[in-house]
Every structure is written in structure tokens, then in C-alpha cells.
């Protein structure tokens, strides 16, 4: 052994001491690092660890059903499966993307698009990559559970509506929520959720929608499920009961048929909507899943406006139905004596311009001398031109507004239109000019700038016949806080105006053909010009400019139980002929049902307290067709004002 180490015991004790201080310092610094993570930021990391470990898969809450007044199902759900992509492990996702695209038949680019558009969402939130998974898709996912751990399936309930657009405008439809809806929902809605977009689905979305639950599972670091955790059950949406009567609705849909138009049936005693139809209609089942932007654009630009709920959104001249407003104003204001009569030769000159009565074109004899009762029955325009002049626009406008024209009825449906009741004040405001007296003449027969919706007319006629009590129309059967507008009419006014409307049908008036046995069916027809007669003479008889037919009928004569307002657009026929039969069919159906019930013969499913579980397989409504090219023209825009 060599002796290189001899006599060498000089140890650098000071430097060794430094080494021990360094050791203590080093451990101290490391402990500080642990203190920061484990004590100061512990909660943050605990959350992250929990999020790592727990995967949440939504349990979609089924939407509540819609039932009719007797508990029959109008809108139901059907089961369906959606494919979820679990995004918490993007490396796995990327790895399997091609296989997923292949296996589920989703174009790879679509898949990538969906992933990139949802980038901002938290990673632990899965996205739906395919709706309406087919049995083949389900088999694919089940058989690849172990090698493609990023796919999951959830059962969702899709809306099932009655076929052929039955009640479609009122019921509305659901769709994937928009970004605006998500923002407005205060965190209640998330991307990919379905919510009501239109109609009652939208109006009562909060009731119908329910709260999604979550299935929670522990997953390991490679995304495999290890064990389940207590799930949070979905809270199903609540069902709503509508005031709609399935039977009357069916009659309404059938009777209106393929013609564009609308039907509203109300119970004027409480404002309940018994039926509401609007044609042409779409089958909302077609877009229960997803509508492409293109399809949507096409629907919106469709000239027939199938998306328009004409019952509450068509703003059209009421035509002669407005004469009820005139007559009531006359009785009530007493500004013109009841003994007032005019002579109708078929035309008349007012303010230097010739106006014609409808009989002028009808190949019938002129009305001759008419009083108010006959004027309503025969719908004599000359009488009402004169009456209008005598009442003046202020008085007409006052009463019409009191009866709810130019104002939304407040029905529980979104996007209701208010219509328009012109007045001196209105022309001042809108056009900065004064009112021309000639305009009063047009307004007096429900032309000119006056526009109304079918719903407004139902409420108006029902309210007048009920003595001036106007109930807020509503679709929900036991809706709370129903507004009641009272404009009490004197008993004599009510008696006379209801007698007048009774006469329209029962005393050889314009609705004589509609008479129903044993029922005090009353009402008023209207035939509104889309464009003025004079203009029509110029452009010729194009279908586009054919008159709109109205009929608003009710029963019984006083204190009515049902009022029905029907619009048939561009029928080319008189209101009594085109729209009247629809009203009559519904009123008749109402009484048939009522009589059966009181006689104890009505034993349909409505009697059972339990509503049927599913919808009847098929409903015998005719396919709602579409008329040839024609426009729902806003009367306000195109109706030519006659001066």
C-alpha cells in the first residue's frame, strides 16, 4: 500500500460546517415548497385532483309533456341515444379520431370542427358528437369500450309532436340553445342543451325543461372507468295541461284544410284557448333534432311563411267584422240615433270620391233602405260609410282600442303581434300629417290602416257578446293571474249587438247558410281586401290579391261559451262562404261533445283520470298542404287606402 495519505489530518472544519448549513437550508427551502402546495394552495389542488378522478356524464332530464284539457297527450317524448365524446384526455381523442369518424360515419372534418368549436368548454365536460345514434352506432361503441375509451352514450328524450303539423304553431318546437340563450340563462343552459325555441315550448320552457342530472364515475389516468360514485338524478320537466281541446283542434285542422289561414277558438268566459291552428304548417318532428342553417334559411324565406303563427301574427284588415265595433260604438255612444237609416244604391260618394258597397260586385240587388240591424246582417258598406262619417275617427278609435285592437292580447305565446288601430294621433306620430276624413270611410268597414290578428277578433267579439268583459286569452289551462279587461257595455247595447250578430246567421244575413239547429250560433263575416277595389280593377284578378275571408262566430247568442275566429287567406270567396263553415264545424263539434257529456255518453279516454301514456299512432288529420304561390301580405303594407 502506498503512503500518499500519510500525515494528512488537516480537515477543513469551517467549510464542513458550511456544508451542514447548506443542507439545512436546502431541506428548509424544499419544505417551504411543500408548505405552499399542501397548505396554502391545498384547496385548489384538491379540486384539480377531484376533477381528474371524476368524470361526469350528463343524464338528460326529459321535458314535460303537453296535455290537452282532458289529459290527452299533445306533445310527448320518445327515447333516443346521443354519442358523447369525452374530452378530458385530448391525446386519446386525437388518437382515436379517425376510428371514431369511420365507426360512426361522421366525416373527419365535421368531427374536428365540433372539437375546435368547443375548445373553450372545460375539458371535463363531454360534447355530443352525434344525435340519434343508430343501433349500429350503439353496437360500435359497446364493442369498442375498452379500446376507444373516449366514447360514451347517453339516452336523451326527443320531442314527439303529433304528425302533420297538428297544433304545431301553438306547441312550437325545441332546438339546440343559441349562444344568446346560454348567456341569458344565468348558467342554467349549457351548450348542446335543448330548449324551447318557439310557441309554448319556448313560453313555458322553464316549467317543461327540468334539470339534467349527472352520472359520476371514477376514472383512472388512462380514462377507464374504475368505480361509480353516487349519481345526481335528473329532475324531469313538469308537464303542462293546456286549455286546448283535442277534439276541437282536430276539427279546426281538418276544416281549415289545405288553405292558408288561421283558426282560434276561445272560451270568452275565462279566456281559455280551445283550439288554435295556422296553415300552412310544418311538422316539427322534422326538426326535433337539428335543422341545418340552409334548411332554416329556406323556411324563413318561404313565401308561404310556414313559420308564421297566423293566429297571433297575421296582421290583416278585419274587413266587415269591424262593423261590430262600429255598431257597438253607435249603440254605446248614442252619438248617432238608433233610428238612423241610409239608402244603399250599391255605391256612394264621400268626400268627392266614389265608394262602392260589396253588393255592387255580387250580382245581387242593392240593399235599398237599411237600418243598423239590417246593415249588420247584410254587411252593408254604404250604411257604415255614413255611420263612420257621423261617428268620426276619434270615437271609432276610442271604442276599437277599448275592445283591444292595436294592442297585444297578452296570450301566453311569444311573438304576438299587436295589429294597428289608426287614429288622428297615430297619423300625427307616424306620418306627421293630419287625418284625412276619407280615411274614416275606409276604416268604418275595417279597411284602410286597421289591422288585426285572428286572436284579437276572437277576443273582441267574445268580449262584446259577454257585455264588455274581455278575458286575456291563454293556452295554459290553470294559468294564474288571468287579466280581465272590463269595459262594461249597457244591457241594451249588448242585447242589440248580439241580436244583430244572431241575425247574420239566423235571419237571412251574410251567414245564413251556416245556421245550426238548436244552437244560437251568431257571428259576423268579413271579406277584407288585400288591395283596394280600384287598384284591383287595374291589375286584374290575380290570386295574389284575392280577398281574405273572415268569420268570427260564437254561441250562444248572449254570454257565449265559445267564440271562434277564422281567417282564410286569399280564398277569393266571401267570408261567410270560405271562413264561416270552419267556424260552424267547430261550434257544432263543441256542442256535440257537450251534449254527449251531459247525457253521460261521452266515454272517450278523457274520462279516465290517467292520461294516455303515448300518443295515438295516427291521427286522421289531412296532410296540411300548401296553396299555390301566394303571399301573406300585410294588409297594412299593401292595402290601398281609399280616399
Amino acid at each position, binding site marked *: 500500500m502506498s503512503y*500518499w495519505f500519510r500525515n494528512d489530518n488537516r480537515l477543513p472544519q469551517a467549510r464542513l460546517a458550511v456544508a451542514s448549513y447548506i443542507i439545512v437550508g436546502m431541506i428548509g427551502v424544499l419544505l417551504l415548497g411543500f408548505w405552499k402546495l*399542501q397548505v396554502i394552495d391545498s384547496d385548489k389542488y384538491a379540486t384539480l385532483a377531484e376533477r381528474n378522478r371524476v368524470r361526469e356524464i350528463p343524464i338528460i332530464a326529459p321535458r314535460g309533456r303537453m296535455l290537452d284539457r282532458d289529459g290527452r297527450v299533445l306533445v310527448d317524448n320518445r327515447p333516443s341515444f346521443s354519442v358523447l365524446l369525452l374530452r378530458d384526455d385530448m391525446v386519446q381523442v386525437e388518437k382515436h379520431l379517425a376510428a371514431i369518424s369511420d365507426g360512426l360515419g361522421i366525416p373527419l372534418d365535421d368531427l374536428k370542427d365540433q372539437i375546435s368549436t368547443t375548445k373553450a368548454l372545460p375539458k371535463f365536460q363531454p360534447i355530443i358528437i352525434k344525435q340519434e345514434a343508430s343501433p349500429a352506432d350503439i353496437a360500435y361503441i359497446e364493442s369498442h369500450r375498452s379500446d376507444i375509451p373516449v366514447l360514451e352514450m347517453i339516452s336523451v328524450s326527443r320531442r314527439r309532436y303529433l304528425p302533420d303539423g297538428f297544433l304545431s304553431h301553438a306547441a312550437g318546437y325545441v332546438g339546440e340553445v343559441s349562444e344568446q340563450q346560454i348567456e341569458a340563462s344565468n348558467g342554467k343552459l349549457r351548450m348542446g342543451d335543448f330548449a324551447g325555441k318557439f310557441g309554448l315550448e319556448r313560453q313555458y320552457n322553464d316549467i317543461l325543461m327540468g334539470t339534467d342530472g349527472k352520472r359520476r364515475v371514477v376514472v383512472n389516468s388512462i380514462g377507464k372507468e374504475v368505480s361509480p360514485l353516487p349519481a345526481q338524478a335528473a329532475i324531469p320537466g313538469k308537464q303542462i295541461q293546456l286549455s286546448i281541446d283535442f277534439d276541437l283542434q282536430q276539427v279546426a285542422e281538418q276544416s281549415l284544410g289545405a288553405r292558408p289561414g288561421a283558426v282560434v277558438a276561445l272560451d270568452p268566459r275565462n279566456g281559455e284557448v280551445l283550439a288554435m291552428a295556422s296553415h300552412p304548417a310544418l311538422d316539427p318532428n322534422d326538426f326535433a333534432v337539428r335543422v341545418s342553417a340552409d334548411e332554416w334559411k329556406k323556411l324563413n324565406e318561404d313565401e308561404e311563411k310556414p313559420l308564421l303563427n297566423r293566429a297571433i301574427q297575421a296582421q290583416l284588415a278585419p274587413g266587415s267584422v269591424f262593423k261590430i265595433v262600429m255598431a257597438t260604438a253607435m249603440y254605446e255612444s248614442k252619438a248617432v240615433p238608433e233610428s238612423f237609416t241610409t239608402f244603399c244604391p250599391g255605391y256612394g260618394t264621400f268626400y268627392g270620391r266614389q265608394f262602392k258597397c260589396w253588393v255592387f260586385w255580387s250580382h245581387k240587388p242593392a240593399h235599398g233602405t237599411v237600418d243598423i240591424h239590417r246593415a249588420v246582417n247584410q254587411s252593408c258598406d254604404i250604411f257604415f260609410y255614413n255611420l263612420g262619417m257621423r261617428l268620426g275617427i276619434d270615437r271609432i278609435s276610442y271604442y276599437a282600442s277599448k275592445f283591444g285592437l292595436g294592442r297585444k292580447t297578452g296570450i301566453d305565446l311569444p311573438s304576438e303581434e299587436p295589429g294597428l288601430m289608426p287614429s288622428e294621433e297615430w297619423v300625427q306620430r307616424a306620418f306627421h300629417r293630419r287625418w284625412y276624413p276619407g280615411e274614416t270611410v275606409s276604416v268604418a268597414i275595417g279597411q284602410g290602416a286597421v289591422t288585426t290578428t285572428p286572436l284579437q277578433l276572437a277576443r273582441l267579439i267574445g268580449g262584446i257578446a259577454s257585455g264588455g268583459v274581455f278575458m286575456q286569452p291563454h293556452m295554459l289551462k290553470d294559468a294564474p293571474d288571468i287579466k280581465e279587461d272590463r269595459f262594461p257595455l249597457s244591457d241594451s247595447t249588448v242585447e242589440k249587438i248580439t241580436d244583430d250578430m244572431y241575425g247574420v246567421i239566423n235571419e237571412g244575413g251574410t251567414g245564413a247558410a251556416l245556421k245550426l239547429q238548436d244552437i244560437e250560433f251568431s257571428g259576423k263575416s268579413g271579406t277584407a281586401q288585400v288591395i283596394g277595389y280600384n287598384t284591383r280593377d287595374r291589375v286584374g284578378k290575380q290570386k295574389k290579391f284575392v280577398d281574405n275571408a273572415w268569420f268570427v262566430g260564437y254561441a250562444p247568442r248572449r254570454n257565449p261559451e265559445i267564440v271562434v275566429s277564422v281567417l282564410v287567406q286569399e280564398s277569393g270567396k266571401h267570408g261567410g262562404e270560405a271562413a264561416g263553415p270552419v267556424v260552424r264545424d267547430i261550434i257544432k263539434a263543441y256542442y256535440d261533445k257537450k251534449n254527449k257529456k251531459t247525457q253521460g255518453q261521452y266515454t272517450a279516454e278523457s274520462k279516465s283520470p290517467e292520461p294516455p301514456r303515448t300518443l295515438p299512432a295516427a291521427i286522421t288529420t289531412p296532410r296540411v298542404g300548401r296553396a299555390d304561390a301566394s303571399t301573406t301580405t300585410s294588409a297594412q303594407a299593401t292595402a290601398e287606402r281609399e280616399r
Partner: protein
Amino acid sequence: MKDAPGTRDYDWWLLAILATICALGVLEIYSATHGSSLAGMHIKQVRWLAIGFILMFALSRLDYHQILDQAYILYIVGLVALVAVLLVGHTRFGAKRWINVPGLGELLQVSELVKLIIIIVLARFFAEVRSDELDLRDLIKAALLVGVPLVLILKQPDLGTALVLMPMVAVGAFLAGLKWQHAAVFSLAGVLLVGAVFYPPVSKKILKPYQRERITSFLHPEEDAKGSGYQLLQSKIAVGSGGFWGKGFGNGTQNQLGYIPVRYSDFIMSAWAEEQGFKGVLLALGLYMALLLRLVQNAQRAKDRAGMFLVMGVAAALGFHVLVNVAMVIGAMPVTGIPLPLMSYGGSATLFVFLAIGLVMNVRLRRFVN
């Protein structure tokens, strides 16, 4: 010279600390692997520990002067082994670090053995410097002595082990009387090197792609959701979610569900911290501190400078391991692949630590012997 002393002279405190740390390691290895395909790993670790204890006692019987005598032969053996690894070594995890030792039945990680040899060689070298101050020539010699194996280890590549050689030479030089101005120059060089590693235009030339990736993911863990940035993040989540009291033995979700990378080895401290909390960390780091201080104390009481350098070489290596590994676990350093001595699972690494401690015992046993 008398024969080797009796058992009374062993550092029983050191052994107790050692045994306790090993016990914590075995427990945590069990907890981290018992439910997985790696179950039974703790038994294997116990086996390594047993072999380690035997080797440690065996090595302590041999006079360290005799070992130091053969330092340069060992050095040559070490270099040959490193070259052999590069030529015929086994590749695991993308690096050629293992060599098949006939009869052992396991692959041996050569660089672990080389660490031990470098400790011996440096002790010999610095002991032979017979002045109180280390001049530049000796310093450069020491650097060259370490530089050659360091380059060979980097070739494997094994950045972690290569890095461990640095503190060994640094601590040796410091104790051999490094001048402050030299220290300043070398520190500056060190800072520049670290700067270069973190500066992409330069690091592109000197680092392997996987090493660069580790650096970038350390600097920007959020950009690398699944690479080593992910590993660091998951480790931090594990540590942080453990809180002060820990989630309890076998209850760490990050650990049990496999979110912690190599939870039984390099990241075992992460698993320990998750399940035992800050109190457990306090215990473990306290034990490591006691171990290191005990080593320094042994150095202070060594009979000669050679013995001191030997003990402090071991302390430098172990201290650096602890620092780099634990700092990585809390996300304060990039992933380097340096295990935590005595707790991490691993054959070669465990054997290295026990052999190193064997050297320390050796020095202690002979402190009163002349």
C-alpha cells in the same frame, strides 16, 4: 494497522435513519403498486435492500485506504464499463444505460457504479493535493477527471446521472480549498450553462429533443398537456391535494388511479406527499436532513482528509439526488430522471446508495485506528 474494528463502532444512528427511510419507501411502493399489475414490487425492493445491506457491511470491512489505493484502476474499469454500455448496452425507455452482468439475472445500470467510482477517484485526487488551497491546475485536472465519464454518460443519454457528478466535484473542490475567485468563475460558468440550456437557440445544439421538451414543458407546463409538463402538473396536484394531513395510506387518488407518473420510483415522494400530507413530508425530509447531517458529522470526525473527501462525496451525491428529485416533485425543477435515494424503487440506484454508505461506515470505523 490493526484489523477492522467491532460492531460497536458502526454508526447505529445512521443505520437507523437509513432503515427508517427505506421502510417509508417500501410502504409507499406497496401503496402505489398493490392494486396494479406491478403488485409485489415492494417485495422486490426489500430484496434489493437486503442485498444492499450485505454489500454495505461487506464494503465496510475493507479498509478504505486499500480501496483508494486502487482508485485509478477503478477509474479505468469505470470508463471501460461506460464504453461497453454504449457498445453492447441494453436500451430501456429510449436510453442505453443497462448492462447484463452474468449471474446477477438483472440488468445493472452502469452509471450508478460509475458514480461510486468517481466518489473514490475524487477522494483520492483531492487527498493527494497537499496544500490548503486548490490551485487552478488541480482544479482543471479534477474537472478533466470527471469530464471524461460525464461525456460518456451524456452519450447514453443520462442527463440526471451526469449532473450528479457536478456537485461531487464541486463539494470536493470546495473542501480541498477552492479559492473564492475560482468559485466565482465556475459559478458564472454554471449559470451560463444553465442559461444556455434554457435558451432555445443554444439548447437546440447541445440537448437531445426529449431533453429540450422537458425544459420547455417545465417552463410552460400548460403547453404540454400530456408530456412531462403533464407529469409535473399531476405531481403537483398529488402533492397539493394531500393537504396537511394527507389522504391516508392507500387512499391517494392521484397515486392509486395512476395520475402520478412512475409513482413507485422517481415520483414516489409525490405519492408519499399525497397520502401522508405535509406531516409525512416533514418526517421524510427530516430523515433525509438527519441522514445528510450525520454524513457531514462523520466527515468532520474522519481520521484523515481522504476519509473526509470520501464521506463528503457520498453526501454531495445523496444531497443532490434529494434536492433535484424533491424539487421536481413539487414542480420547481424539470423532469431529470433522478430517483429519490432509498425511497424510489430501483436495483442499481439502491445498491449505489448502500455501497456509498458502506464507504462512509468504512471511514467511521477507522477513525480511531492508525
